[in-house]
């Protein structure tokens, strides 16, 4: 079979400057880069050159549905989004749940590549029959919720799916994200700002096509088999019951709760007890939400009836929100957490990075570096959620101190000076949201992440459950004799390497990480995904070949980062604070990231990849093994290919 069947078949290109629209076949890239994130990344690599800046019209903003998006494969509901990031100057990449990915495929396109800049604000209206640039002037300044509703009403079609930006994206806020379904975000990397720089308020898709499998019955047999796996897993059951915010106490007891801008990684248990999942369920939850083919339906719906935030109804939140708007800012008022989560969605702000830069400002205020004179009279006192809400608004509209915070804490600290740099915790220029001093493998995964931090590009969740993992499972899954405790560096580089490739696969298929061995070793592994992929596309591959594709995708991201941002070994080290200040309280008190441990883990990590230890750069032989000769040539021309000797 020449072409993978599970494909809309076409990539849509739109130049907003000239208005030119054209298509090309998806097949050109499918065999090497699968789909979703993989093909997006290659289109980014090929189309955006190192001398182009993130806000140049020439930067590409690329939406990609996965090969299995829109099918019955579990959680086949995600789309990826990539561009050169205005935060890191390197790979900007993320993906999101919601119905956008499915609708995009039904409208006839696997990927939508946008370049150029519209003269006036526009939104794209895409169906199987036409691609239209429509006037978005009435929408400029509107929130994502207003935009979503307005476009659907204008189209007279509630099934249209909208990916849009809020005021933050329009104002080129570096923590701006892209929102679909009012609550589903492609958060990190400032991709909403790239969209704003193109004067593109939204993309709306409405499809009437269908998605066909190469071997329909075989595909459904595979679906049944993997659904059974998801049904039997206790960890999957926990998601069904609680969503991602399920068991905060063990994480706090492992000292993985960022407190007051990382002054500690263990939160006051009395405060924690006020905000346990039971409280949200009992007093605020009014329902559940699931997206296409999702057997986990982890999303919760909330309603606030009393207090300053009464009247709010919304979908959300995730575990990240607990770190972002509880412990990080020391807020112990339950409705505030829901409200701040929603405000971020409405303004189109990534809540992870936004809460980080606000926490940085709070600590600067605490230390006397920032004063009321700088903040427009606001007192930045830990726990004051109303001040946080006001700062989010100021960031979204770049008003007063918000104009500084909108740059992210690394840049903001260079504007503020006065020693404020000391309180910044960034990775590759992007605010880092995870507490990590107590778990070395988790830390390594976050720090080497190709998208500038984040825990979905290599970070593992299994070291916290190390006691429950039998040696034979560790050997079979990760090729290590056992999973060592979080404080140990042993075998952690192997875990990171495994998850980097797995996550590239899952993102390229358009599925959710919670279906995979990332969430639990008894869930879907590369072999499971290969069986689904083969039945869907007719291209017969096994788990090993899929892992190789994952490695290839990861290597393209790495090369993009080296070429565009000049990243090397020093950019894979943790924030200084985590290497100098130990955890102050809790069971992991005294833990920090020691340089000599990190040196050793990085050496192992680079060796596993076949990258040079001294620079962290790639070697030609490894790139050629992955079929990336032209990437090796590009790196060589730039003088950033690891030397042979």
């Amino acid at each position: 079979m020449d072409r993978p069947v599970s494909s809309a078949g076409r990539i849509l290109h739109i130049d907003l400057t000239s208005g030119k629209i054209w298509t090309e076949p998806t097949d050109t890239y499918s065999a090497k880069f699968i789909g979703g994130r993989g093909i997006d990344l290659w289109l980014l690599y090929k189309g955006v050159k190192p001398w182009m800046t993130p806000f140049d019209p020439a930067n590409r903003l690329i939406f990609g549905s996965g090969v299995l998006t829109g099918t019955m494969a579990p959680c086949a509901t995600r789309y990826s989004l990539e561009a050169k990031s205005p935060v890191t100057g390197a790979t900007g990449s993320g993906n999101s749940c919601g119905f956008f990915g499915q609708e995009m495929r039904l409208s006839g396109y696997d990927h939508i590549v946008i370049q150029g800049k519209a003269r006036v604000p526009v939104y794209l209206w895409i169906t199987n029959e036409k691609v239209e640039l429509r006037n978005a002037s009435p929408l400029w300044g509107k929130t994502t919720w207003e935009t979503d509703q307005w476009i659907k009403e204008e189209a007279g079609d509630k099934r249209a799916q909208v990916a849009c930006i809020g005021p933050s994206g329009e104002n080129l806020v570096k923590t701006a994200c892209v929102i679909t379904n009012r609550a589903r975000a492609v958060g990190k990397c400032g991709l909403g700002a790239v969209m704003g720089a193109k004067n593109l308020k939204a993309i709306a898709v409405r499809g009437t096509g269908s998605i066909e499998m190469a071997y329909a019955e075989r595909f459904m047999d595979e679906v049944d088999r993997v659904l059974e796996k998801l049904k039997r897993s206790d960890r999957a059951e926990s998601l069904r019951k609680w969503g991602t915010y399920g068991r905060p106490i063990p994480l706090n007891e492992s000292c993985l709760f960022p407190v007051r801008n990382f002054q500690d990684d263990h939160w006051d248990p009395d405060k924690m007890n006020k905000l346990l999942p039971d409280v949200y369920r009992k007093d605020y939850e009014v329902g559940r939400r699931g997206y296409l083919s999702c057997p986990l339906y982890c999303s919760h719906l909330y309603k606030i009836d009393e207090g300053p935030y009464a009247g709010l109804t919304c979908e959300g939140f995730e575990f990240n929100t607990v770190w972002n708007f509880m412990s990080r800012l020391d807020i112990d008022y339950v409705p505030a957490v829901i409200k701040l989560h929603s405000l971020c969605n409405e303004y189109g702000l990534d809540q992870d990075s936004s809460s980080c830069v606000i926490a940085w400002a709070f600590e600067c205020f605490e230390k006397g570096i920032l004063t009321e004179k700088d903040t427009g009279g606001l007192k930045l006192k830990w726990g004051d959620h109303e001040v946080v809400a006001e700062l989010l608004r100021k960031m979204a509209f770049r008003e007063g101190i918000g104009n500084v915070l909108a740059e992210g804490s690394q840049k903001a600290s260079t504007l503020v000076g006065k020693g404020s740099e000391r309180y910044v915790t960034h990775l590759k220029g992007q605010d880092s949201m995870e507490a990590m001093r107590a778990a070395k493998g988790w830390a390594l995964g976050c720090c080497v992440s190709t998208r500038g931090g984040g825990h979905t590009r290599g970070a593992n969740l299994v070291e916290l459950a190390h006691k429950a993992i039998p040696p034979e499972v560790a050997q079979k899954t990760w090729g290590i004799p056992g999973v060592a405790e979080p404080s140990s560096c042993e075998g952690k580089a192997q875990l990171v390497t495994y998850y980097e490739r797995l996550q590239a696969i899952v993102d390229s298929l358009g599925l959710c990480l919670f279906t995979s061995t990332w969430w639990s070793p008894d869930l879907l592994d590369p072999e499971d995904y290969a069986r689904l992929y083969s039945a869907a596309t007719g291209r017969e591959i096994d788990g090993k070949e899929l892992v190789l594709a994952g490695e290839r995708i990861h290597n393209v991201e790495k090369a993009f980062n080296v070429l565009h941002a000049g990243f090397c070994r020093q950019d894979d080290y943790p924030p200084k604070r985590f290497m100098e200040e130990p955890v102050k309280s809790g069971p992991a008190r005294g833990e920090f990231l020691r340089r000599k441990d990190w040196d050793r883990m990085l050496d192992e990590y680079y060796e596993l990849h076949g990258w040079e230890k001294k620079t962290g750069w790639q070697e030609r032989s490894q790139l050629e093994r992955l079929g990336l000769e032209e990437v090796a040539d590009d790196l060589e021309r730039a003088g950033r290919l690891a030397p042979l000797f």
Partner: protein
Amino acid sequence: MSHLKVDLDRCVGCKTCEIACSYHHRKVFDPKIASLEVGEAPEWPGVSIILYEEQTGSEMGSHLSCDACEGEPGALCTKYCPVGAIQLQSRRSCRG
């Protein structure tokens, strides 16, 4: 006469039933031909489900009539609903 009974309080709005249904009819994943359609109820966070007992034609699709998954061991919307919100009534004595 409907073959299906839906518990809207349980429904999480995932629309998996739509594509399971289209698979039954044509072995493809295609919401526009499904015999049921999931939408938002006027009052948040409610969900609405329309069951198409007869084939309909419109600009955006042509929903095929529900045949209670004739030829399948059971209704696929029931089988794949993650929360058990859809129940197939007896094929012989269906009640709405």
